[in-house]
C-alpha cells in the first residue's frame, strides 16, 4: 500500500510541514542528523579520494581535484533546481516558507558554485594549460554563479524581505533556462571540458575505484547542502517572526486596554 487514503490529497502531508512552526520543530529534530551525515560522508569521501583512490593514468594526481570539483558542480546545479522549485511554489501558492527557503538556498548554492569554479580553475591550469577559457561550459557555470549573486542581491534590496520575494523568484525562474545549457553545453559546443562520464545512459565511463569516493562525497555534499539550507531556513522563519512581533507591537500603540499579563 503506497497509495494515499481516498479523499486526502497527497499535498496535505507536505502542507503540514509547510507550517512554519511545525517546520521549526521538524527541522530542529532532523538537523543534527543531517549535519552529522554530511560531515561523516564528506570527510570519508574526500579522504578516500585523496589517499586511496588510484591516480589517473593520464592526469596523475590532479584527478583528485575531481572529488571536490564534480560533487560541488552537482550541488551548484541541484541547488539551483531547488531554488527554482522553491521560487515557483512561492510565486504560485504564495507560501512564505517557500520564499524563505529560496532565500536560504541561494547563498549555499553560490558557495558550492564558487568551489566548483575555483577547483575547476585549479584543475584546468595543469591539465589544459590555462586557468580559464571562455567556452560554453565554464561560461554557463559562471553565469550560474552570477544568477545566485543576483538572487541574493535582489532578496536584500528591499527593507521588507517579503516584498523582495516576488522579483527574486522571477529572476530565479528565468535563470533556470541556464540549467539545461550547463548540462548539455559539453555536447552542444566544442569545449575543453570533458563530456559527462558519470551520468551516461550506458555504463559510467569511469572506474569503480574512482566512482565510489565520488559518489560518497556527492552524498556528503548533499547532506551538507541540506543542513546549511535548513539552518538558514530556520533563521529566516525566526527573522520573519521577529518582524511580525515588532509589527504587531507597532500596530497597537499605547492602548492601555491591551491585556498585559505581567
Amino acid at each position, binding site marked *: 500500500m503506497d497509495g494515499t487514503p481516498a479523499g486526502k490529497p497527497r499535498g496535505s502531508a507536505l502542507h503540514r510541514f509547510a507550517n512554519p*512552526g511545525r517546520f*521549526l*520543530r521538524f527541522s*530542529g529534530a532532523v538537523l543534527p542528523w543531517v549535519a552529522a551525515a554530511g560531515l561523516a560522508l564528506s570527510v570519508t569521501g*574526500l579522504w578516500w579520494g*585523496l*589517499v586511496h583512490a588510484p*591516480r589517473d593514468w593520464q592526469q*596523475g*594526481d*590532479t584527478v*583528485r*581535484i575531481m572529488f*571536490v*570539483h564534480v560533487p*560541488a558542480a552537482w550541488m551548484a546545479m541541484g541547488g539551483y533546481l531547488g531554488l527554482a522549485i522553491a521560487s515557483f511554489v512561492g510565486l504560485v501558492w504564495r507560501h512564505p516558507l517557500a520564499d524563505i527557503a529560496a532565500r536560504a538556498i541561494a*547563498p*549555499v548554492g553560490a*558557495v558550492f558554485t*564558487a*568551489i566548483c569554479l*575555483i*577547483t575547476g580553475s*585549479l*584543475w584546468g*591550469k*595543469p591539465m589544459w594549460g590555462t586557468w580559464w577559457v571562455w567556452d560554453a561550459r565554464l561560461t554557463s557555470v559562471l553565469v550560474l554563479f552570477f544568477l545566485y549573486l543576483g538572487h541574493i542581491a535582489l532578496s536584500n534590496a528591499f527593507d521588507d524581505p517579503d516584498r523582495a520575494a516576488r522579483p527574486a523568484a522571477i529572476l530565479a525562474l528565468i535563470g533556470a533556462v541556464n540549467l539545461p545549457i550547463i548540462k548539455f553545453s559539453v555536447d552542444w559546443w566544442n569545449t575543453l571540458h570533458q563530456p559527462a562520464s558519470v551520468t551516461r545512459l550506458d555504463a559510467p565511463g569511469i572506474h569503480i575505484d574512482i566512482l565510489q569516493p565520488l559518489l560518497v562525497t556527492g552524498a556528503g555534499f548533499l547532506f*551538507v547542502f541540506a*543542513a*546549511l539550507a535548513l*539552518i*538558514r531556513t*530556520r*533563521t529566516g522563519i*525566526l*527573522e520573519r*517572526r*521577529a518582524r511580525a*512581533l*515588532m509589527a*504587531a*507591537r507597532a500596530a*497597537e500603540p499605547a492602548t492601555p486596554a*491591551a*491585556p*498585559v499579563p*505581567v
Partner: protein
Amino acid sequence: MDASFWAMGGHAAFVWPSYAIAVGLLVALAVASWRGYLAARREVARIEAEGPRRRRGGSQ
C-alpha cells in the same frame, strides 16, 4: 603520510588548494549560518520577553 603523498605527483600546488578552499568556504558558510541563526533566536526571545501580547512561540 610520506613525502610523495604530500607532493601529489608534482601537482601539490593545485590539489591541496582545491581541498583547502572547498573546506574553508564551507566551514565559513556553516559558521556564518549558525551565527545568524543564534542571532535570530536571540532577537525573537528578546522581543517576546519585553513585549506584551503573543504567547511564546515554539522556537527552540
